């Protein structure tokens, strides 16, 4: 099962992609969070819409904030969401 990772979507990213999470088989060429977002955009119009302006999207790897250039090596869970607005 190597290569399978859980993808999580929150807030308007979740609404646009139409799901809150999925188990995905990432392409072997995807080494960073940015690579994953580039691949997600190819998966259909809803993903293209969600990740169109991908610089605003925040990401976390295994429940820790991560930059877009962070490596996804050994990642089990990658999350995509808008800037947080709690408090």
């Amino acid at each position, binding site marked *: 099962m190597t290569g399978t990772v859980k993808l*999580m979507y*929150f*807030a*308007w990213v979740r609404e646009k992609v139409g799901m809150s999470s999925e188990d995905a088989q990432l392409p072997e060429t995807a080494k960073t969070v940015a690579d994953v977002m580039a691949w997600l955009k190819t998966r259909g119009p809803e993903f293209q819409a969600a990740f169109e302006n991908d610089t605003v999207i925040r990401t*976390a790897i295994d*429940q*820790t*904030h991560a930059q877009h250039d962070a490596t996804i090596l050994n990642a089990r869970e990658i*999350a995509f*969401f*808008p*800037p*947080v*607005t*709690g*408090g």
Partner: protein
Amino acid sequence: MTVSVQEADFNVGDETSRLTDGNTDIGAVVTFTGLVRGGTDTNPAATMTLEHYPGMTETELERIEAEAHDRWPLAATRIVHRVGPLQPGENIVLVIAASRHRQAAFEAAAFLMDYLKTKAPFWKKETDNAGQGAWVDARESDNIATDRWQNPSKTRR
């Protein structure tokens, strides 16, 4: 357990008592309560719905809390954040910082709120009376507020 993410309301008096009862080393307690504001006449907010990232939220809040304890001499801290649908006037978030002296308690409470606002994975959606929903935009002022804690010479004791 000093971090709670819950649908239920909280009471600032009860939460404060729980931190201070029996601890006579505490001389200062600062609490911050965030509430849902009503909208304007032209843009009434009927409901605020709080979404979060279960698991990461608690981890992130505990990390923020630990950082406050590293920076200030705190006797106790507490963070409660509500999730789910909330009406105007309802509580959203509670932060408490208790210390021997007031400066540490004030600074730590402000720090906890600034970091929570920019790091903890919560998202607010406003739904107006017509049922129209809109995700609340992040505020640049919150990032600026958080950045002020980055200069260690100014903030570390």
